[in-house]
């Protein structure tokens, strides 16, 4: 009698990200053993990350070096200017990098930190006099040269700077790593007058001694990160009277550039992994949660092996916190939308990262710094180069680790991955020799409902006039079943007769349109007259698809073993790929 196939459905595999801490046998199938170049997409699926698109076309200033930091400076008028540092220079621009280094100012290290503060951007690095740029001066200047600035010897040459509570705060100067300095109120260059001051916390460290690594402001608190401890001050709005609110011993911050604010939390890299301050409003204590429990050993290994520097970024648009170990070209992507049962973030890994700087612009655009200059995190290729997306499940036991499993079918369901070749891999009994089967995903150009539907009218195309469909039950019923109307280029509004003023404020222009409420007709102006839109001839019409491209394949499998690892690899080259589910059909054999 034929034995019934046992079906194991891995719904949203790797939904919980990587887990290298728990035993593979006991793991939830929602974890992944490997999730490279992956993210958790908007539907909670594991998916390929985006690539980067190099913006810079002229990087002569940068040479062969990499950008070490990028910062968008926005002045009070809303003007934006991108600064970056690298190749021992202060650089501005994105397409063409421009050297902004002040004259007679020698830079030998690029470990700058830049902050916006009161219509200026400040550059701080240990051992260097801070630099300042403002649109009024249109040049990067040494801080001491500014009006009202303290003397060069009085300005802290700090490695860490924070703009918060109307002041600049800085710390970690040469030979003094226990003092936090704050500037005068709203005057970032004044460190000796007004309400400026400092606080020596050498007597405050809970462990007796520590060194300040980073500063953060959160919820009215000034958080001072040491290497192995954290000191929190409250009432930092008035630093002269701020007082100690909490201290945390045994947990510190590895690097200044790993601290990111999420708005509701502060995330930082400690020596034992990624951590965050849980937001406390009512509570006075400051609980700390570990966000990288699932990769603790991995991340500690990377921390200990890092020889260069760390970079991080928080992107609310992408819903992730990226932590890059530059020297090891490894980035961990923590999904910040939620946490697992143990409080950790879902995490994926981006191996081979060459990202050396991040900056999230005000509009949500994520800039990435590489040796190529400034890039934008977008698309699905690394500046035209494919990258490999990998998923490997933990060892699956099908509920009984002692019985033999004979894998018969692998039925993955993929979303996207247009025309991509997908490699399905599986192995038994913790083996590393994977059996591979491949298939190619079909081709489909997606059209999105109610986003940008562009019917093309032959009468309008020559004028470059576009139109936008507006759903309206009182509108026109089209052949595709929709009811509504198209706003063509410049919609002037509703009138009872032809308007005489165009969208430009003068005469009516081609493409100007209006809805005649008296006639209940939508008119568009073409070549000196208003024409009823319904009389035009749509030359083409985008069909609405059923959604994203979904591929569900059934692949034969062979072999047997007590545990099964299933993997999927695909080169990402221009199209997104999400793994919706993997359905495994296997025969359960004898007990071994």
């Amino acid at each position, binding site marked *: 009698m034929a034995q019934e196939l046992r079906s194991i459905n891995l719904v949203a595999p790797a939904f919980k990200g990587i887990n290298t801490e728990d035993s593979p046998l006991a793991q939830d199938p929602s974890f992944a053993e490997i999730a490279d170049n992956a993210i958790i997409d908007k539907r909670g699926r594991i998916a390929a990350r985006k690539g980067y698109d190099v913006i810079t076309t002229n990087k002569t200033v940068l040479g062969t070096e990499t950008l070490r930091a990028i910062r968008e400076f926005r002045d009070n008028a809303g003007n934006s200017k991108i600064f970056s540092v690298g190749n021992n220079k202060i650089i501005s621009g994105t397409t063409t990098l421009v050297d902004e280094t002040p004259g007679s100012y020698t830079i030998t290290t690029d470990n700058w930190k830049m902050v916006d503060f009161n219509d200026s951007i400040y550059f701080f690095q240990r051992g260097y006099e801070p630099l300042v740029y403002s649109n009024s001066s249109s040049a990067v200047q040494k801080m001491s040269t500014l009006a009202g600035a303290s003397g060069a010897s009085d300005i802290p040459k700090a490695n860490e700077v924070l703009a918060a509570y109307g002041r600049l705060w800085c710390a970690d100067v040469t030979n003094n790593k226990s003092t936090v300095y704050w500037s005068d109120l709203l005057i970032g260059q004044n460190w000796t007058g007004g*309400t400026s*001051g400092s*606080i*020596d916390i050498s*007597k*405050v460290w809970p462990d007796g001694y520590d060194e300040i690594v980073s500063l953060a402001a959160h919820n009215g608190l000034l958080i001072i990160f040491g290497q192995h401890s954290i000191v929190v*001050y409250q009432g930092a709005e008035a630093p*002269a*009277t701020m*007082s100690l609110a909490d201290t945390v011993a045994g947990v510190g911050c590895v690097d200044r550039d790993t601290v990111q604010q999420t708005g509701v939390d502060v995330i930082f890299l400690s020596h034992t992994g990624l951590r965050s301050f849980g937001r406390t409003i009512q509570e006075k204590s400051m609980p700390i949660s570990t966000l990288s429990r699932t990769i603790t050993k991995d991340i500690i290994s990377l921390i200990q092996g890092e020889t260069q520097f760390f970079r991080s970024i928080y992107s609310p648009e992408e819903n992730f916190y990226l932590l890059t170990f530059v020297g090891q070209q490894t980035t961990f992507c923590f999904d910040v939308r939620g946490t697992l049962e143990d409080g950790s973030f879902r995490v994926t890994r981006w191996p081979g990262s060459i990202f050396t700087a991040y900056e999230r612009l005000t509009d949500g655009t994520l800039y990435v710094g590489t040796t190529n200059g400034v890039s934008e995190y977008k698309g699905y290729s690394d500046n035209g180069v494919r990258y490999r997306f990998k998923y490997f499940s933990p060892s699956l036991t099908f509920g009984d680790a002692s019985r033999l499993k004979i894998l018969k079918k692998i039925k993955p369901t993929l979303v996207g991955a247009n025309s991509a070749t997908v490699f399905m891999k599986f192995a038994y009994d913790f083996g590393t020799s994977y059996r591979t089967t491949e298939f190619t995903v079909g081709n489909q150009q997606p059209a999105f409902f109610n986003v940008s539907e562009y019917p093309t009218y032959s009468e309008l195309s020559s004028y470059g006039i576009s139109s936008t469909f507006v759903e309206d039950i009182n509108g026109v019923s089209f052949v595709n079943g929709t009811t509504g109307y198209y706003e063509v280029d410049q919609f002037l509004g509703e009138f009872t007769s032809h308007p005489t003023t165009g969208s430009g404020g003068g005469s009516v222009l081609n493409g100007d349109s209006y809805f005649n409420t008296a006639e209940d007709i939508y008119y568009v102006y073409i070549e000196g007259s208003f024409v009823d839109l319904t009389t035009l001839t749509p030359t083409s019409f985008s069909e609405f698809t059923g959604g994203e491209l979904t591929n569900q394949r059934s692949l034969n499998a062979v072999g047997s073993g007590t545990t099964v690892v299933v993997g999927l690899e695909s080169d990402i080259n221009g199209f997104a790929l999400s793994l919706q589910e993997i359905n495994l059909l296997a025969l359960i054999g004898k007990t071994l």
Partner: protein
Amino acid sequence: MDEDEYNIGIPSDVLGAGASTDAPTPEDPGFMDLFGDFLFGGGAQGLAGLGLLTGAYNRLGGIGERGLGLGQNLATQQMQQAAFRPYTITTPTGAMFTAGPSRPMTPEPMTPGAPNDGIFIDDGPGFTFDPMFADIRQGAVIDDTTGFTSEPLPQRPDGPSLRDFFNQFNGTAAPTLQPQGQQFGMQLSPMEQAFQQRMFGDAGTFFGQGIVDPSVREEQIYGQIETALDPQQRAQRLGLEERLAAQGRLGVKTSQFGGTPEQLAMEKAQAQQLAQARLSAAQQARQEQMQQAQLGQQYLGASYIPQAQMLSALAPGQTAAAQAQQAQLYGTGLFGEATASGIDALLGAGLGQANLMGAAGTGLLSGLFASPESAGGTEDNRSGFFRNIYDYITGG
């Protein structure tokens, strides 16, 4: 012959006029003749008269001398009777006022509790203090021309302090007073003297303290206040330090406050406290200075209280003594008057006797020296002899 206005004897030339040593001439009878003639011719009568006159004369002289002697005796007696009678007024507290003959005085050093003569009044040309004594004892001089005159205290010696100035009265150098007749003495009781000395010494002490530079005392008081405040301020500092440590703010340095606002406020408050303490110390020092001066004045005044009280007690005593003296003087006057009356009567009787004898003598001599012309005879040598005597006596 030498002129002797007090010699009432017969001039030698007069007496010698009829007793010339030259030998009588034949024309001149011999002395015996003459003498016989004289005796029998009335000479004896004349001699008797002369004798009476001489006796009257001598009696008158004796009466005068006796009168003089009686007067002197009376004066002497009255002087003794009217002489000042020493008396002593003793107050209930033991102070004494003594009026009596002068005596050499050597004041004892004014040691507390030792008897002291106090004020001495000389009865010489007027009431006067020995300047030296008065200067150093009382500071006031009473002389015979101006009476009681208060003079300011002698200038404070430049070198020694006022206390030393007062303390010199406790030294052993004592001026020696010369005996100057009658003197009056006031002497306080040992207790009063001790009190006076203590008050006097304390007054000097107070005055000495009153003229000390107030800044010294101010510093002293300020130091005391600072010492008193120091534990409190230290506790405040420690408390603040603990609070700041608990708040993790020990290391705060601000351009605005230096340290923390609390530290500035505390330092400011403590500085104000000390400033207030300094002000209080200054005020206290000056107030104490005034109090010292006032106490000095009070003690100085109090040091004179025994003397003043003694002088107050002196008035009734002096009144009684004056009454006794007045009665004494009155009795002396009566005695003098009575004695003078007796002397007058005695002198009058003597004078009468002398007059009687003189009259008798005059009568006897008048016959002897009767003029011959008036007797109808011729003037012989005898008559000439007695006439000359007569003329000599009568001044004719």
